[in-house]
């Protein structure tokens, strides 16, 4: 019989390298004589939407049209080091570096009075010996924790998330289907609601895999499931209906109040599912993945 259950989970996530590690991002903003703005920044577009975030921060800061901005982001000989696209740090760290570069450029641009044509502006700035290229820099503030007591301020800022999962468990086969998921996340100001929602839904789906499907099987250190036929990840038929809400609790040190989101997006899903399974069948699973095998045998043991 299929039984319905509801589960909740909340998480927090300290973004950035943390622990006092030099967490730096650099970027440059340059007005060219063709009247274009080149933002040169080492943001790796891994799919998360990093390019769009940098572009939006630049547009907002420089108050110019998107089409006039060109991102230069993939050549180490031409761009500054902005650190890893990891630790959910690109929006916060590199976004701050882009903001810094753009603010400086905007200040320089404001030093000369001209009509709105950027080509003229370039000529005038050059005439007045004003820099048309500015450097942006940001370093996150954290401190190293003591290894014996853990005391310190290891991360900043923190992102938060809460999810509610509704599942259906077949108590005769152990099969779990995720029916509906409601998410509320605080990642500060959301720079792009479309890509941000993409992170939540994509992250949650990875969380579903983590909770009920995925596992690297080893035999004496040798991976037994090296292919997609045996390393199982969710398909379009394994996903619930997602509802996503953002609580935009502005972070004052973030670019326009933004914090990181990529990783926290996947965290609450799996425990919410585990709690929902318990709610459905009264059996608690203490390990991932909660496969039908584990669930059915746990039911069997409980009934003994």
């Amino acid at each position, binding site marked *: 019989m299929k039984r319905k259950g509801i589960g909740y989970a909340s998480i927090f996530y300290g973004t950035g390298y943390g622990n006092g590690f030099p967490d730096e991002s650099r970027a440059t903003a340059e007005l060219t004589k063709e009247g274009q703005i080149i933002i040169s920044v080492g943001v790796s577009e891994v799919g998360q939407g990093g390019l769009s975030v940098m572009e939006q921060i630049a547009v907002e800061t420089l108050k110019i049209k998107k089409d006039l901005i060109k991102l230069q982001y993939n050549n180490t000989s031409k761009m500054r080091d902005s650190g890893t696209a990891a630790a959910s740090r690109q929006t916060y760290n590199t976004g701050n570096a882009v903001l810094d570069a753009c603010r400086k450029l905007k200040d320089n641009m404001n030093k000369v009075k001209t009509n709105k044509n950027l080509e003229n502006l370039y000529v005038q700035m050059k005439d007045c010996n004003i820099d048309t290229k500015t450097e942006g820099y940001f370093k996150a503030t954290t401190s190293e924790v003591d290894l014996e007591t853990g005391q310190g301020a290891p991360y900043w800022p923190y992102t938060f998330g809460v999810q509610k999962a509704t599942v259906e468990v077949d108590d005769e086969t152990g099969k779990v289907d995720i029916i509906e998921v409601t998410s509320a996340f605080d990642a500060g100001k959301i720079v792009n609601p479309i890509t941000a929602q993409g992170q939540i839904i994509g992250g949650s789906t990875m969380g579903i895999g983590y909770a009920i499907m995925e596992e690297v099987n080893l035999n004496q250190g040798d991976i037994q499931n090296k292919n997609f036929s045996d390393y199982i990840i969710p398909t*379009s038929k394994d996903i619930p209906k997602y509802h996503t809400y953002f609580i935009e609790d502005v972070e004052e040190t973030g670019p326009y109040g933004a914090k990181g989101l990529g990783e926290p997006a996947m965290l609450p899903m799996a425990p919410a599912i585990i709690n929902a399974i318990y709610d459905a069948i009264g059996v608690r699973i203490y390990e991932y993945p909660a496969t039908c095998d584990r669930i059915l045998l746990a039911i069997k043991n409980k009934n003994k």
Partner: protein
Amino acid sequence: MIINGKSYTKKIDPLLRLIDFIRDEAKLKGTKEGCGEGECGACTVIIDGRAVNSCLVLAASVNGKEITTIEGVSQGKLHPIQEAFIEVGAVQCGYCTPGMILSTKALLDKNIDATEEEIKESISGNLCRCTGYQIMIEGIKKAQDKLKKR
């Protein structure tokens, strides 16, 4: 064989897979290899109106057939499916996208009124690790509206 309306004639190794013919001989790089065993759908192409995994097809076997790859979907201008994917933001890393669009096209060419269940079914052979599918499904619904209005 005919790929996107263009005819290719070549003597090939009978064991050459269709994906290798498309990428290495026809030089059409939009078709992606994700797993090489028909599990991920990144290499999906349309043959005679049906979506198939080009990594499981021998090129020699489809001699003379009509094949559509992602390059053949937008000839001149974007296809409504592509427009819809752009508008809703149905793409992240983009590696599954060509295959996803071809599976969608194979569905909508046959059944423009496909239900949400049918949509989910039609892309259920295309793995996506980034998006969680939901926004793609919204994109496909939007594409249905666009195609109906044409």
